Every structure is written in C-alpha cells, then in structure tokens.
C-alpha cells in the first residue's frame, strides 16, 4: 500500500468491502470489522487534525498540506479496512493448517494475534454490560477502569489458559499430522495468481513511476489513472466471487 491516489484507494476499499460482505462469518468477527472501520476513520481524522495544528508551529496551512494529510489518512483507513476484512473472513486456524509445517510456530503466533481482536471485542461487550447492570453510570471517565481492568485481566487469564490448554493437549511434541486435507482447487489457484499479479503490477508501477501511485503536490493536480492499476486494485475483490471453501477431509 504505497499509493495515495484517491481513485485506487476507493477501488481497494470497495473491493475489501465486497469480500467482507460475501464471506463474513457470524460471531464476534462481525463486530471486529466494524471496529476496524472506526479505527480507520479515527486515524484519518487524526492525521488531518495534525495539519490544523500547524499554525502553532508557525507553518501556514495550505491546500496541498491539507490534501496530503487527508490522502495519507485515507491510506491508513483503507489499510485498516483491508486488515479488518482479513480478520473477519479468515479463520486463524485455517492459516495454521494451510501453512507449511516449518512455519508452524510463527504462523501459530500470527494466528493467535489475529484471534485477539475478536476475542477482546467480545470481552469488552460482556464487561461493559456487566458493569452497566451493576450501576456504573457515573461520569464515564471514572467508570473507565471498570471496563479496562476486567478486559485486560480476562485477556491475560485467557492467554494463560490457552497456553496451558495447548501444552496439556500435546502442542509442540514434534511430528504432527493434519486432520483436513486442503487441496488446491481452482478457487485458491485463482486467488494466489491474482494476488501475485496485483503485487507485481504495483511493484512495477512503483519502480517505473508510471500510473501515478502518489499524488503530485507542487503544484497540486489531479493524478492520472492507469487502467492497469485500477484493474489490479479491483482484482482484490476476486475472493468475493469465489464460493466459500467447502471443507474437504
């Protein structure tokens, strides 16, 4: 994601949303997508707000500095949106299973980290409710520890319980087998080729400077749009049109 070109950003954001809409799974993951969108919006607002502080440092606010801030904020927002989509449509355990055995440990860590967001969100909802029915309606900032402390403590306890459970159930004993066979079907092939093409196109564009990945600032002007890059960005939406995996055994 090295582009600040608003056209590409819009296409990528829309593609991510399409994938989310096609493959979302029930449960806390649903909420996790919305929360990442919020984070994105906040990041964008914060990046723009920084520019408004410029007069404090005796720097004039120019149109181009505001536009730069907006576009950079949008870039972060779209990035979070893509991450949120990944988070809400993927099962961390699928990652673990599909990855080569040599990468088991690092992928396990990544998988657990991925599952952290939905878990924490579920705990936050539960704790907020529990404190509300216990009468926590005082000034909000004063009730904050009532939310944060149990969430952190529960998170810690769950992490320890998970580590214990994994050890007690033989994790890391050595050779392991896999219950599900994950065969390469047409869908996964298409996806891998598409992602390689997208990466390649963007890398080519960044290297050659064609396709206006970033917006020219002085003077400020509308960036050009290359049909190749729009197609590449739109290709991110391909998974939305593939059927969900029917698990093979």
């Amino acid at each position, binding site marked *: 994601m090295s582009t600040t070109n608003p056209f590409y950003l819009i296409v990528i954001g829309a593609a991510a949303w399409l994938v989310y809409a096609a493959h979302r799974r029930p*449960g806390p993951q649903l909420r996790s997508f919305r929360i990442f969108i919020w984070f994105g919006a906040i990041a964008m607002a914060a990046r723009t707000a920084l520019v408004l502080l410029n007069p404090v440092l005796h720097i004039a606010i120019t149109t181009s500095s505001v536009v730069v801030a907006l576009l950079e904020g949008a870039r972060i927002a779209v990035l979070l949106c893509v991450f949120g989509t990944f988070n809400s449509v993927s099962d961390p355990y699928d990652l673990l299973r599909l990855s080569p055995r040599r990468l088991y440990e690092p992928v396990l860590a990544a998988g657990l980290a991925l599952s952290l967001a939905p878990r924490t969100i579920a705990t936050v909802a539960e704790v907020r409710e529990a404190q509300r*029915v216990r009468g926590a309606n005082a000034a909000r900032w004063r009730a904050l520890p009532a939310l944060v402390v149990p969430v952190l403590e529960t998170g810690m306890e*769950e992490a320890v319980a998970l580590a214990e459970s994994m050890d*007690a159930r033989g994790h890391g004993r050595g050779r392991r087998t896999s219950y599900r066979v994950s065969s390469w079907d047409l869908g996964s092939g298409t996806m891998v080729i598409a992602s390689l093409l997208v990466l390649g196109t963007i890398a080519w564009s960044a290297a050659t400077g064609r396709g206006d990945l970033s917006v020219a600032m002085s003077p400020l002007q509308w960036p050009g749009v290359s049909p190749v890059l729009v197609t590449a960005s739109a290709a991110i939406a391909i998974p939305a049109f593939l059927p969900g995996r029917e698990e093979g055994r």
Partner: protein
Amino acid sequence: MTDAVTFERVTFAYPGAGDAVLSDVSFEVPEGSFVLVAGATGAGKSTLLRAMNGLVPHFSGGRFRGVVRVGGTDTRAVAPRELSHEVAFVPQDPGASFVVDRVEDELAYAMENLAFDRNRMRRRIEETLDLLDLAHLRDRSVRTISGGERQRVAIAAALTPGPRLLLLDEPTSQLDPQGAENVLAALQRLVHDLGMTVLIAEHRLERVAGFVDLALGIAAGNVTTGSPQDVLERVGLGPPVARLGRLLEWKPLPLTVRDARRHAADSPPDLSPPTKRHRSFRGGELMAARLLRAGYGPKVVLHGIDLEIARGESVVLVGRNGAGKTTLLRCMAGLHPPLSGRVLFETEPPRPGTDVALCPQRPESVLFRETVQEEITTTLEWKQRTGDPAELIAYFGLPAAILQVHPRDLSAGQRQLIAIAAVAATGARVLALDEPSRGLDAESKRHLVSFLERYVSDDRAVIVATHDVELAALIAHRVVMLAGGEIVAQGSPEGVLGDSPVFAPQTARVFGPRWLTPDQVAEAVAR
C-alpha cells in the same frame, strides 16, 4: 490392578501463599475407577486435578515437594505435553481451553499433535460426536455455541485421543439435569467398557454420587480416599439424600435416590405434613414482561413471554440449555432490546443497574478492583449508598479476612459470591442472577439462599436462572419453566418441580412432590 495415579508425600503451595493447598498428601487411584473429588469451595480440588497432568507445578510455579506419578511417569520430570497421550484435562471454564474455531477441528486438535493418521482421526471424531450427541454442531464455531454445548465439546475434545486418565473440573456446571445425566452415563460407559480412569471434581453431588465408585476428599490440605459414603461423611458433604439419611438415621448412608427410597420404604419416617413456602403475591406487581419477543439477529429466542414479578417474590427460571433463560434475564434487566412487546418496571422500562441489577454467568466480567473490599465500596459509591462491606460478605458466610484479598486469587465459588455481593450492593429493587450456584458447596449455597431471603423481605424481588434444581427448590416462591423460548409451566415449586421426571429435587423423588428440601423434612421430624 495397577494404579493410574499415585501421590507420594506431595506438598504444594502457590507462589506467595503462606498456606499449603496440599500438605504431605499420599494416595493412589487404581486404574479403571470413576472417582469423585469432593471438598468445600476453595479446598483445592482444581489444584489436585492440575497436579495430575503437570500443570501444577509446571505452569503454576510455587513450592512443590514429593512425587506425582501418572501411568508410571513422574509429572515433574516431563512437560505436560509429554503426558498428553496419557492424560486429558477439562478445565472449569471450557471456553478458555479452545484453541481452534470449528467444533470438528477442536476435536481433532489433540490427535493432530499426537500425529494420529487421518483415518483413525476421522473414526474417533465420528464416534465421539455420537457419544456426546454433538454431530449437529460439527461445523459450528466454538464461540457461538451455548455454554452447555461448549462444556460437551470440551469433554469430547479431551476424549478423542483416547486418554487413559480423564480429569474433569466441574464438567456439569452449565448443563441442564438431563444433559448432565447423559454426559455422566457416557463417561461411565468408557470407564466400564474401556477401563479408562475418570476423576471428576463436582459440587452438585446429587448428579454424580450415583455414578462414582471411589472418592477423594480434600479438607485443610489433607486428602482421604475411600468409598464415596465414607469420604463424604468425613468431609461433611453429601447430596440432599445423604442429609435425609443423616436426619432419619439411615444406615448405610444413601447417596442415590434409589437407596433413599428403599430406606424410606423399609422404615417409613413419621412426618407431619410439610410447611408450605408458597405465598400469594396478588396485587403487588413490581415488574412485568408483556408479549415479549427477543432474539439475536435473525434468530428469535423468546416468543411472546408474559411474566409478572411481585414485590417480595423469588422467581426461578428453569429449562434446558438454550431455552432462553439468559435472554429473558437480559431483557428484564433492560440490557437487551425486545423485538416486540415490552418490559416494564412499575410503569417505565427498567433502568439497568438502578431498577434491576444482574450478576452474569461469568463473575470475572464484574470484578475489577484490587481487593474484595474496594469491589463492594465501588458499587456503593456508584449508587451513592452507604453500607458495610464486612457485614455484606458476612451474609454470604465469608470471613472478614477475605476483604483484603484480590478477587482473582479466590476460588471459583468465592469469586461467584463476591460478584453477587458486589452486584447486590446496588440495592436494586430487582436482583437477577444467572446460574449463581456454580462452584458453590452446600454450605455456601445455604448462605446464598438466606441472603436472597433477606433481600426479598424488603419488598424487593429476585429472579434466578439456574440448572440447579436443588437451589431452585430452596429459594423459589414461584418456578417458571421455559422451553423453546416460551413459558410452558409456572406455579409453586411443588407443582412445577415436584413431579417432574427431569427437574424434581431429590427430596421430592424420595417423599413425593410436596417435599422439596431436606430442611422441610428436618422441621417435620422436629415437630
């Protein structure tokens, strides 16, 4: 016969704790036994189980002396994972033990680690899904199934690798009576047919006493072994029928309804008619649900509930797992918006935490302060009330010393009581409790019951959702039975619970539907 587990002079204390949980403990458990681990709340049952697969001391730290052998292996010499082909452990909170997302994969996880080949995995998974009646859940996520279902999935996931020793920490706490019966019967079959050794820590002795053939009793750091009768006698615990047996001097002490009925038939006690607790609350309506429909997303859980709660009344909701008890409580507390119909407290929608306070199933989501004392004073400050935390916890039979303890250092049962105390400190007119007897021994349960009696005596009301029929029999003025999101029966506990084949408390099964609790029998004997 060889021994599945041996303890040789084991002493253990948690890091930073002065008192040892186990002091100089020696015993052995023969292979192929079904063992009850009994002890009061906080006596160390969980610790004892965790010492059997090496989680104590490998994960807990602390001072550990002596030797624990499982299938001949010293648990301290190897990591818990090296014992995983031999021992399986199901912790108190099954949700915390799940590693993967899909039920079927969760069942495969331990076998994958043990490098089972695929055909063997498939066969074992199918067998276990059938054994615990989980086949319909195989593709569900472990995060979206109900508490009772999670408990069964956790047990199934422990069983698939075919352990020789299975350790279960309160495995039926979230199961309805029939569900618990099915799980225990399945385990008994594994013990009888395959010679597996099962150890089960449980407070709801009325559920397990009929299945086990050996018991370990823990009290004050000491462990005794023997027949369930002897051990329960020594640690002063027992199911309600055992209390009846003590009252009526039946020997040998009955542990099952069947034994108690034989005693009652052989020597019928001379009992005056029972005192009725059922009172009429007509006219004193405090809150009500009218034609309440509620659900989550497209799933409708409650279908047109009409329920009134009167001043001074204790209402108990019973029903199988997934009947809608928790959702109804959440609606009554004003937490969950109805799809249609309404919930009224007096004439307005209830204000959560003011009109109705609710203690959820997981006490951990309530507790957040450094000490028990602060936990209670926080609620009092929020509600601008005055009160003495020491007095409040004394109602629950807890010593004042506990006020300075960190809530998370308490046992599951004590945490539960503290969470209830912290919620009750709101002084709300209606106190709602979701499955409050988890982790509570008979003594703590009695304290909870007398606290709730005090609470309603002040024209307030209590709503309790529970699978614990003995608790329901102790506190209910009225029992409401839910099934499939509808009220299928409501009325006096004698009428609703008394003659139910699933929900009748033990005393009713022995003496008939008019008798609900051993206390009533004690009164009748005294008169």
